């Protein structure tokens, strides 16, 4: 199934999408905030493709829902839905600059951050931007006159190449200065804490593997900064709190603390000298010499085998990897002259041309199927929709999807449980 493509004319530098707002950084140093839902609703797709358009661009979590997964076991239903995505792929979806400004643009403002930045991130209703002058944060509120606050704060002043957020912390790639982390202090008055060095080994990109961090590097192929996520000892205020504390420890709930355990080298993960490596959530990849190696990651594995090798596969495209990412729909690899998507099902998709920028949103609930690619005179927003119909447990390319279904931990049978 080919991706659906929506293009927006303009000269852009970076893009973000968050809570119904598309943020477009222009190459002259402005940020355009775009009302995303009206833009998608206004696409001339016809009523019969409304569901497909909505799932493709607004609600990527919808069809991952277990109820739909049950419905998809009916081949006829699955076929109908798939045909709608195929029909949407055939539609030309384009927004010119005039239409964008007139109908969908909420605000265009000067970027409050140093420009041009290296990377950006939307996390916890804030926009974070990193670059040569450090790490910056600005509040975002679409109801304000300026949706991105014009008074950003500088959290750290060292040069940063990439940023990624999870567990109330930001992982920061500082190149030769290694991998760093900033605890945003959400549990304590939302005051970020001092940046902490996790590893001195070079790091040019980083992503979260649940509560651990994978650091990518050209120098030594990369490493996993492995953390455990342990229950914090909660102070009891009175003897009555005993029961609560016991309950927390028995069901694995309560406040937790990430504890750094050490580095696991890419060569250990793949049992051979590695090439450029990257990962997110439950997958780690290493690519080079027209081959890609895959390992899975499950820090909760009850036998202690958190990392397991999946296999090594042929890559069609030759060349050095510039950068790479993972989304639920597959693996994205940037080469000098093209982006190649290895989908969780089907043939590789090649997007020719050197991109100005690109990004995926693997931890987003609503936009995890998006791939944003910025070219000279437009941004292409690709939507990949094959992954709804893929066996998630056994897929090779792509991370575990985000769903809005509650994770229910298995409660061990202990004396306390039985009493409950």
């Amino acid at each position, binding site marked *: 199934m080919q991706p659906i493509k929506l293009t927006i004319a303009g*000269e852009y530098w970076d893009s973000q999408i968050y809570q119904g707002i598309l943020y477009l950084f222009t190459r002259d*140093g402005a940020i355009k905030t775009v009302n995303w839902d009206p833009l998608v609703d206004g696409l001339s797709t016809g009523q019969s493709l409304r569901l497909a358009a909505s799932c493709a661009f607004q609600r990527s979590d919808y069809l991952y829902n277990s109820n739909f997964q049950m419905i998809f076991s009916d081949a006829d239903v699955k076929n109908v839905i798939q045909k709608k995505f195929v029909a949407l792929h055939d539609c030309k979806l384009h927004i010119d600059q005039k239409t964008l400004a007139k109908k969908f643009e909420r605000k265009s403002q000067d970027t409050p951050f140093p420009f041009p930045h290296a990377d950006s991130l939307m996390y916890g209703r804030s926009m974070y931007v990193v670059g040569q002058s450090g790490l910056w944060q600005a509040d975002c509120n679409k109801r304000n006159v300026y949706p991105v606050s014009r008074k950003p704060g500088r959290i750290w002043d060292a040069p940063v190449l990439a940023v990624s957020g999870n567990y109330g912390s930001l992982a920061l790639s500082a190149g030769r200065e290694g991998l760093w982390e900033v605890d945003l202090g959400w549990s304590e008055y939302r005051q970020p804490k001092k940046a902490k060095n996790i590893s001195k080994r070079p790091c040019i990109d980083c992503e979260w593997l649940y509560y651990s961090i994978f650091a990518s590097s050209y120098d030594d192929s990369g490493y996993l900064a492995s953390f455990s996520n342990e229950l914090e000892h909660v102070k009891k205020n009175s003897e009555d709190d005993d029961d609560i504390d016991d309950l927390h420890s028995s069901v694995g709930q309560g406040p937790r603390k990430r504890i750094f355990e050490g580095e696991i080298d890419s060569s250990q993960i793949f049992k051979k000298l590695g090439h450029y490596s990257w990962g997110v959530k439950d997958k780690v990849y290493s690519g080079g010499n027209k081959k890609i190696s895959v390992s899975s990651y499950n820090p909760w594995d009850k036998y202690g085998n958190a990392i397991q090798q999946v296999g090594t596969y042929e890559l069609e495209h030759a060349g050095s990897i510039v950068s790479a990412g993972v989304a639920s729909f597959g693996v994205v690899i940037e080469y000098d002259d093209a982006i190649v998507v290895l989908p969780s099902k089907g043939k590789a998709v090649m997007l020719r041309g050197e991109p100005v920028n690109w990004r995926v949103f693997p931890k987003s609930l609503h936009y995890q199927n998006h791939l944003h690619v910025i070219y000279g005179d437009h941004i292409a927003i690709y939507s990949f929709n094959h992954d709804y119909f893929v066996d998630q447990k056994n897929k090779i390319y792509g991370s575990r999807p985000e769903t809005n279904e509650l994770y229910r931990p298995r409660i061990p049978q202990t004396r306390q449980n039985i009493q409950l």
Partner: protein
Amino acid sequence: MKVKINGGEYDYVPNKKHRNKTPKASQWRISQSLEIASFSQSIGEGWLDGNYSWGLHQVSGSCQYLGVDRDHITRVFIARFEAKATPAVWHGYPVNYAFERPPESVTKNWLSSGALAAAKVRKIIQGKRCSL
């Protein structure tokens, strides 16, 4: 030597170690006159940052490699010029942006003037591999 740029005059003395294969010193692979042209452009265009200016080597509007890094193998396309002593005497050398990255004020200028394609500027800023 004296280099005239936009009505101003600059002292420029090429440093031999960046041409005579000195180990661990990056090496120019363009002629000395093109080195000076790169310096002139960096000053003329205002690609400045304190006591440094940052240069490119453009041929018919397109950026080309200008030297090799300290390993004498890795090709590089950015030069850094610095003024030592007072009065200022300038010299320059090729740099690898993986180690020495130009500041935002310079990359912003490269981006807006089109001196370097946006895709290349992004790779420099992110420390990513970039071939011309």
